[in-house]
């Protein structure tokens, strides 16, 4: 009976070999796929066990931190709550919800190792420790922005035109990132970050883009004279100035100071669709803003068809370029994009990519990543920027933006009061974009208030922008 015994044993060796082969399938060959399977709760639990780093404002104010929970796990808490909820976002590992910088800086905050460090870390079995991330945000400016919005829906974006560092990004409605299910006290309470996700009618602030295109392309100068009579046929339909005022022949400078629609519609038409499109692209239109927020929380500013609501392809012959030139014609923008427009002029034509992340500091206090200012595009010649700056200074000194004219501070800017809603509804979207001081701009602010009853950018938005500029410029590192 010895031979059969040997054969039975041989069979068991084969069967056990199968067990080993299958074990190695799960432990080695299919390991990665199993570990990333969405059904695998271990992935989430492992993440919960990471002591994620702090997210801080520029002055060290804690915007997000981890608090220890049961069984060596951690959860996130947001000490500043709705004040910074829009840019900071949230990260709830258990439910797989994350947004804002908590999402886009997640790898830094969790201390995810890359390259050679990752391999060494794995061999040593070292536990993952998160890094702290300092942002460029200024809590004082952010708080002031919310104070001045005073409960009205709208957005404030403040940034440093020299570097693209965003100092304030405040939008209403906001929400409490500590409790996503909490009812909020604003109608239409929303996690939407209006500063980067709104579809607002730009109105007259867009005339800056038209002015830049006209002067930088060489077709116009600040002293070029254009007829400002009203109304005027644009794309076959009559376009009127505010109050249907006929201004007669005026220079571009005067036209900008008084925001004369018919003149800028002609400038846009004469510059032509291809050139207008080219300049819009340089300012960042048609693309998502180049900022370090999750792509899902960004929308591109661009013209949309008034017929079917779909975005036009850049330079589409269906675009009503005359009306786009005055910020109408289906052009929908984000406050962040309009801040970028002012920033390009303020920084001598060099548009810096806006950013919220300043530096990453590890547990030992060493700065492991320092975000460097990066050039997004050279929008215009420095001479154009110089000329347009002066024109924008004029707007504040003697034009529609006088409410932003602060004593001792040379503010340059442009107002906007876009008519929205149905004809005759009197609903407006007031705007102000601007920078200061005009000779050496250190701060850009864009402000918009949503759906006001006939209020003007010059009276509603300009004072907010001015107050924020004043505050930031008064700070030591402003």
């Amino acid at each position, binding site marked *: *009976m010895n031979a059969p015994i040997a054969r039975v044993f041989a069979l068991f060796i084969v069967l*056990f070999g199968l067990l080993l082969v299958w074990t190695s399938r799960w*432990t080695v060959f*299919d390991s990665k796929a199993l*570990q990333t399977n969405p059904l695998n*709760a*271990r992935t989430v639990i492992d993440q919960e066990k990471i002591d994620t780093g702090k997210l801080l404002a520029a002055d060290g104010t804690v915007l997000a931190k981890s608090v220890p929970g049961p069984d060596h796990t951690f959860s996130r808490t947001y000490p500043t709550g709705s004040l910074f909820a829009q840019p900071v976002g949230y990260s709830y590992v258990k439910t797989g919800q994350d947004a804002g910088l908590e999402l886009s800086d997640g790898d830094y905050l969790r201390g995810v190792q890359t390259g050679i460090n990752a391999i060494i870390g794995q061999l040593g079995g070292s536990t993952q420790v998160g890094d702290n991330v300092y942002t460029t945000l200024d809590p004082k400016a952010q708080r002031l922005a919310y104070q001045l919005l005073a409960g009205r829906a709208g957005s404030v974006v403040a940034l440093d035109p020299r570097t693209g560092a965003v100092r304030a990004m405040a939008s209403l409605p906001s929400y409490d990132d500590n409790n996503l299910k909490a009812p909020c006290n604003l109608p239409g309470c929303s996690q939407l970050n209006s500063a980067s996700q709104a579809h607002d009618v730009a109105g007259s602030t867009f005339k800056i883009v038209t002015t830049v295109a006209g002067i930088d392309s060489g077709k116009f100068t600040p002293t070029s004279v254009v007829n400002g009579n009203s109304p005027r046929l644009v794309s076959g339909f009559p376009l009127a100035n505010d109050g249907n005022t006929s201004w007669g022949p005026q220079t571009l400078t005067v036209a900008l100071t008084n925001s004369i629609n018919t003149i800028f519609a002609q400038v846009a038409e004469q510059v032509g669709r291809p050139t207008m499109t080219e300049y819009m692209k340089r300012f960042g239109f048609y693309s998502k803003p180049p900022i370090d927020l999750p792509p899902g929380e960004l929308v591109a500013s661009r013209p949309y068809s008034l017929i079917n609501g779909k975005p036009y392809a850049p330079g589409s012959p269906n675009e009503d370029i005359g009306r786009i030139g005055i910020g109408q014609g289906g052009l929908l923008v984000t406050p962040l994009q309009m801040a970028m427009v002012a920033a390009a002029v303020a920084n001598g034509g060099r548009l810096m990519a806006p950013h919220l992340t300043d530096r990453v500091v590890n547990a030992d206090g060493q700065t492991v990543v320092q975000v460097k200012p990066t050039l997004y595009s050279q929008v215009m010649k420095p001479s154009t920027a110089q000329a347009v700056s002066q024109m924008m200074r004029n707007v504040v000194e003697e034009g529609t933006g006088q409410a932003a004219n602060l004593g001792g501070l040379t503010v340059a800017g442009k107002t906007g009061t876009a008519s929205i809603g149905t004809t005759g509804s009197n609903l407006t979207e007031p705007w102000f974009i601007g920078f200061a001081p005009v000779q050496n701009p250190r701060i850009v602010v864009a402000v918009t208030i949503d759906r006001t009853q006939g209020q003007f950018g010059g009276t509603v938005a300009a004072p907010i922008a001015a107050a924020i500029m004043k505050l930031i410029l008064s700070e030591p590192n402003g």
Partner: protein
Amino acid sequence: MSARNRELVGLIPASLLVTAGFAGVFIQRSNALSNVSLTYGAIFLGLCLVGHLVIRATLPYADPYMFPLVALLASFGIVMIYRIDTIAARQQAQWFVLGLILFAATIIAFRDYRKLERYRYTIAAVSLVLLVLPRVPGLGDQVNGAYLGIHIPGVFVFQPTEFAKIGFVIFLASYLRDTRQVLVLGARRILGVTIPPLKHFGPVLVIWGLAMLILFLLHDVGSSLMFYGALLSTLYVATSRVSFVVVGLVAFGLGAWYIGSHVPHINARVQEWLHPLTPSYYSGRNPAQISSYQLANSMFAQAAGGMFGQGFGQATLTIPGTHSFLLPAPSTDMIYAVITDELGLFGAAAVLIAYLMLIARGFKTAILARDSFSTLLAAGLSSVLALQVFVIVGGVTRVIPLTGVTLPFISYGGSSIIANLVLLALLLLVSDRARRPVLA
């Protein structure tokens, strides 16, 4: 070196494992080595030493490697159970004591184990009763749709299959010793297939029916496979007829297929096995009540272990903030997955190799045995042990559909540890007789 001294030296790996394992768990829990916990390790090693002394006193010629291998496997078990549930580890140690008492009792009571042959029908009948007990209303305990144990309130869940498998092998060995010649010689060949005489093959058919009954009544695919596999392997050893095995496998396959497609529970187990990562199966929210959560989590646990494992005490066992296990039944059915999680592919391979070495010693004993009953008994016991390991590890690793049988000597469970120590006692008894020097 004498066999017994070799056995004593062989206990060193087990003691090293216990020491390293407990130390690992403590370091992970980052509290100082407490007296209580050290005592666990010491008591456990003391028990192994007692086992060795029993063998030394009673079975001087028995195989010197079996007991150390069992001690090694049990060490794996006690460390893993301690790491999962400290209270369960203390209970396991108590069961181990009871198991050793029965181990010694078996050795003393059956010094001449061949007298077991005389009671083969009684043993078969008792085994049969034991098997169907869980289905008796009021006694049985249904777990995940299978009737696997008898719930004795306040004491424990008694798992009769663990004991029935031993009785079953004793019956088989004894019956086949008598009939093996007749089965072969009386056989006729029809169309190239050897058909044994029905009169003698009858009881074998009864066992086939029994296996089907286990499937049908108890819904226990694992035990069914284990019993039937033991039958086929013992039958093959007894007769050397591959055709018997082939016919047996075909008969089993047909029966299993028929029952599988008519008993929803078994069909569900097959679906879970084929598609464990289907979300509706994973969540259990489907009309057929297919629930692959456990099997999928077994795979996830093994994936987390990787090549080298996360280390003793490092694996994630519970959902944070709760006491509910991420992987259900971590100390019983799923212990192999937990071992793989903590010790990786290499740790799992070590466990499998330890089992193979133990099984090799069992078959070696079968070869050395000087009479047919001894040979068949040793081969049968080794086979049933090997099959039990294959059924549960195969289930956990998705080689075959998952059914709840314990991993011998490692899993938590009184019935399992006691029954398997009795099985070891029988193997050592056969081995002692087989290796005893023949007096001139």
